């Protein structure tokens, strides 16, 4: 679900095909019948944006039928934990307890475990402006008082235990309701649920694959949470053949999250500091890390990172230069960043290997942001739309603006290609793989390593001698990297060494457990500690797969500590024995008194007895019992109910997409009440389908990618052999919609929202189908499919689907809703020049949206 694996990850899909050949059931739940559906045993078409309703139906099926893997659920999940009395599940309105209507956010304090002291109440100011406060993405859960277990009921019968709450919460998601919300025949949902149940348990496991089909919603995180609940109930986490697999779309999008170029985290998911902690490192640790579990050592991780960055300048006396880190106090993520550019608060912009004009929602808003900058640096291998926005854009075409009116100074810098530099990509399963440089970058092309290193060097030189305290972090930075070759490219391996870290005597760190909070160790990213263990580039291990076991431990290196399956303690029963011979993976060898297995590294202390119970006052990993696999959580349990970490509820709840043709059939709140909207002239929204003006945009559209192209096209529209495979922008519509709107197969269609109108060739196909949704009376909803790869530059051009989308974000992670919105469609090519603006204006008038 939420993934089109055969199309987007074809080579990964070989394993699915192979599994199917061996008897696995492959089911694909997706609004469209895709190449993945073609290979699946069953395709279930559902309305875009209704995944939680579908998954809720599955959860209800499991719970109401007693189909959960009871022993797993009782021991490994928080099903037995009792939640605070104050907690109230969603009511008819669709709101959990703690809703603060004036701010549009939750006070999450009532969602915690009973009997624990949660660090759950974030400052109100931070919550309203920003959810990445102490209590949000980046923070790592509530505190358990010194590992003291919360109140529990092992019989799972206490009315306020998680299991019972879960049962009640999902009881609404009956097959009938699912059918009406999703447009999925109930038999199909039940078939999926039954198949999942049958393929779970001791002898079997099932996996869930998702991708941005789940994340790009105003309830994206909760989509994944719903899957996590299913997998935990069925005992499919931490076991071979199980799991929830995020299929990521860029070569290093995982790596750029682990060692983040993201505003709210530091390497290894250490939260970015807020002003709250002021310059007190201990306060920061107290606010952001629980005492127990892996995060119990947050201070060691942070100090080691600060030592890696500021070296000698980071001392115990100055809190290891903690004050050198900038503070975040709001949502500084991608979309608010662009809005700040429009407001001329952000004046400079460096874009590296990304093409927001095509890849981000609301393209004209993106361009407007760029046009309001003082300076822009774009680094890419070809001249992408983001570099050319000032002379080639719809706004130029329609005469809305002219290059002369755009004051942005633009630097386009040719980047080195991946074959022209050493370095690692982290793949979708956390595996870091080293690439060897094949050739030197030609002409002005340089690696981004070179660019950053050079920029740092020059800034440091220009600031040298400054006595301004704000320049100290720059000047004190450890920045002497050896360079190589004619272009003086920095040696990437030395950076990996810094990431890995060293002891005071210069020895390389071999695992994160060695890190200290006294400044005696350095480590650029604690989860990567060990990647250079023994002075060897572990990511560059390339022993042929054919010479290894199926785990292939000597190919690349996986964080943390080279563990290939996370939470793999769960592959054994509470006593440490494999759940079954067939599915054995890691188990307790009582003779050797050690965890052993088929070749992976245990995600656990290697000698922790399964019967271990933490003593009073234990901290860190010592506070995790021998039968608690989920070591990243302070209680070591898998969370069916999320007592902290999320801002929109501890349990997944069905909400309609922001732009939806119908009301929420389950609750009064139509869409996620915590979603982030931006009421600005650049970002008009289509009226909801049920409100006046909504009828102007009666269809649902969803955006996606094709096998033959890559994301925003920078790496595929420059390649002739790919372009001939999918040369033109097209839309996919059902024969019924084509008949209704007079769309001609092979002809052209205009697709309209209040943002703009684009054109596309028409592909009429049964792979898109009308759905019957709602009740009293049910109505037919048509869906339009739009691939988003095209733009105005490159070897093939076409309108971008993202021109159509608004900014509306999931408040947990600030990802916009690309996957479901409303539109109109009509035959013909869109007007050129000023006539296009008139057409858009007309749509806005009809919909009652002010221009």
């Amino acid at each position, binding site marked *: 679900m939420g993934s089109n694996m055969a199309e*987007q*990850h074809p*080579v990964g899909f070989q394993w699915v095909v192979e599994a199917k050949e061996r008897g696995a059931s492959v089911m694909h739940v997706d609004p469209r019948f895709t190449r993945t559906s073609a290979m699946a045993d069953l395709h279930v078409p559902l309305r875009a944006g209704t995944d939680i309703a579908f998954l809720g139906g599955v959860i209800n099926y499991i719970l109401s039928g007693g189909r959960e893997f009871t022993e797993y659920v009782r021991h490994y999940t928080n099903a037995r934990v009792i939640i605070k009395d104050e907690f109230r599940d969603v009511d008819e309105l669709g709101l959990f307890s703690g809703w603060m209507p004036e701010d549009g956010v939750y006070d999450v304090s009532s969602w915690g475990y009973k009997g624990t002291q949660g660090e759950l109440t974030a400052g109100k100011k931070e919550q309203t402006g920003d959810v990445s406060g102490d209590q949000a993405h980046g923070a790592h859960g509530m505190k358990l008082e010194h590992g003291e277990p919360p109140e529990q009921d092992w019989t799972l019968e206490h009315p306020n235990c998680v299991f019972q709450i879960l049962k009640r919460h999902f009881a609404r998601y009956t097959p009938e309701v699912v059918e009406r919300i999703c447009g999925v025949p109930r038999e199909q949902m039940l078939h999926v649920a039954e198949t999942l149940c049958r393929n779970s348990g001791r002898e079997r496991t099932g996996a869930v694959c998702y991708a941005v089909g789940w994340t790009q919603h105003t309830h994206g995180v909760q989509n994944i949470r719903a899957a996590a609940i299913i997998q935990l109930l069925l005992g499919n986490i931490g076991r071979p053949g199980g799991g929830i697999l995020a299929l*990521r*779309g860029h*070569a*290093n999008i995982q*790596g*750029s999250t682990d*060692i983040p*170029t993201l505003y709210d985290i530091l390497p290894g998911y250490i939260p970015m500091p807020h*002003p709250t902690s002021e310059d007190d490192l201990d306060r920061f640790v107290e606010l952001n890390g629980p005492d127990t579990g892996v995060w119990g050592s947050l201070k060691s991780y942070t100090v080691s990172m600060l030592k890696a960055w500021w070296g000698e300048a980071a001392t115990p006396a100055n809190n290891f230069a903690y*004050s050198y880190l*900038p*503070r975040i106090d709001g949502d500084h*993520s*991608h979309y608010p960043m662009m809005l*700040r550019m429009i407001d001329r*608060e*952000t*004046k400079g912009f*460096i874009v*590296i*290997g990304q093409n927001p004009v095509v890849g981000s929602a609301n393209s004209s808003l993106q361009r407007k942001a760029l046009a309001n900058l003082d300076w822009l640096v774009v680094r890419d*291998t*070809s001249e992408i739309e983001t*570099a050319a926005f000032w*002379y080639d854009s719809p706004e130029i075409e329609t005469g809305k603006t002219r290059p002369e009116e*755009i004051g*942005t*100074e633009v*630097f*386009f810098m*040719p980047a080195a290609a*991946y074959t022209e530099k050493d370095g690692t*990509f*982290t*793949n979708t399963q956390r*595996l870091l793989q080293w*690439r*060897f440089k094949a050739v030197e970058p*030609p002409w002005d092309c340089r690696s*981004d390593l070179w660019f950053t*290193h050079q*920029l740092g060097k020059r800034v440091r030189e220009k600031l040298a001698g400054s006595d301004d305290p*704000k320049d100290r972090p*720059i000047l004190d930075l450890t920045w002497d990297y050896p360079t190589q070759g004619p272009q003086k490219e920095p040696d*990437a391996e030395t*950076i990996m060494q*810094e990431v890995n870290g060293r002891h005071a005597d210069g020895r390389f760190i071999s695992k994160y457990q060695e890190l200290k909070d006294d400044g005696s160790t350095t480590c650029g990213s604690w989860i990567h500690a060990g990647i250079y263990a023994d002075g060897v580039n572990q990511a560059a291990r*390339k022993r*042929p*797969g*054919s010479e290894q076991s*199926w785990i292939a431990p000597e190919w690349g290196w996986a964080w943390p500590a080279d563990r290939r399956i996370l939470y793999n303690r769960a592959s054994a029963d509470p006593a440490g024995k494999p759940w079954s011979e067939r599915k054995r993976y890691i188990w307790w060898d009582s003779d050797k008194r050690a965890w052993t297995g088929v070749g992976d590294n245990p995600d656990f202390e290697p000698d922790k007895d399964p019967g271990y119970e933490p003593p009073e006052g234990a901290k860190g990993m010592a506070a995790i019992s021998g039968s608690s696999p989920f070591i990243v959580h302070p209680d070591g349990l898998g969370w069916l109910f999320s007592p902290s970490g999320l801002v929109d509820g501890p349990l997944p709840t069905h909400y309609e997409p922001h732009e939806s043709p119908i009301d929420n059939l389950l609750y009064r709140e139509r869409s996620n009440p915590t979603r982030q909207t931006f009421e600005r002239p650049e970002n008009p929204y289509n009226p909801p389908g049920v409100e006046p003006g909504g009828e102007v945009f009666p269809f649902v559209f969803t955006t996606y990618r094709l096998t033959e192209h*890559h994301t925003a096209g920078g*790496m595929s529209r*420059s*390649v002739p052999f*790919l372009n001939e495979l999918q040369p033109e922008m097209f839309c996919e519509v059902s024969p019924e919609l084509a008949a209704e709107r007079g769309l001609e197969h092979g002809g052209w269609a205009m697709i309209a929202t209040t943002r703009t109108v684009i054109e596309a060739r028409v592909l009429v196909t049964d792979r898109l189908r009308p759905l019957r949704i709602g009740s009293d009376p049910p109505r037919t909803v048509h869906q339009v499919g739009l691939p988003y790869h095209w733009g105005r530059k490159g070897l093939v051009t076409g309108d971008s689907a993202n021109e159509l989308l608004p900014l509306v974000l999931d408040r947990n992670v600030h990802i916009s809703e690309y996957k479901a919105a409303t539109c109109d469609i009509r035959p013909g090519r869109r007007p050129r020049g000023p006539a296009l603006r008139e057409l858009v204006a007309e749509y806005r008038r009809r919909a009652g949206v002010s221009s």
Partner: protein
Amino acid sequence: MAGPISPLPFLRQLRGDPLGLGRSARSRHSEELEPRTKTADRVVQSVCPYCAVGCGQRVYVKDEKVVQIEGDPDSPISRGRLCPKGSASESYVNSPIREYKIKYRPPHATGWEELELDAAMDMIADRVIRTRAQTWEEETEDGKPLRRTLGFAVLGGATLDSEENYLMKKFFSAAGAVSIENQARI
């Protein structure tokens, strides 16, 4: 040239290939054919730059130019296989529209200008320093530390290496920038 009609192939037909369908028809070019994977100067192991499956690649280099990129059969992830994008990697690195020189567009200009790499780096460093100074925020209204700038932002990282992301996060954070984002947000 040792053309295909010398020595007369139709006479070779008499030696065991009467219909002239097989060996006798084979040209010298065919006999001497060698794959460029064999004639390459070197081959390095790499990883596909497109999605995050992380398929192994082998990059063949001849005369300091990439001449072929194909799947690495050693990879336990991909077993030598590649999707269409991965298979097109050589065309990507040698794309007909790949840019090799800096392009510079002054404010309000209507066209690109040339610029030396060194000068461009210097100018960008100046702009970072200037914008940072102009937009520096020392503390919150209630006097808590911010020590940051929202004046310039950085976007991108998912197509780059982890080492590059590390250096970017390290430098731009040290410079006080917090709006550092990448594709993971979309």
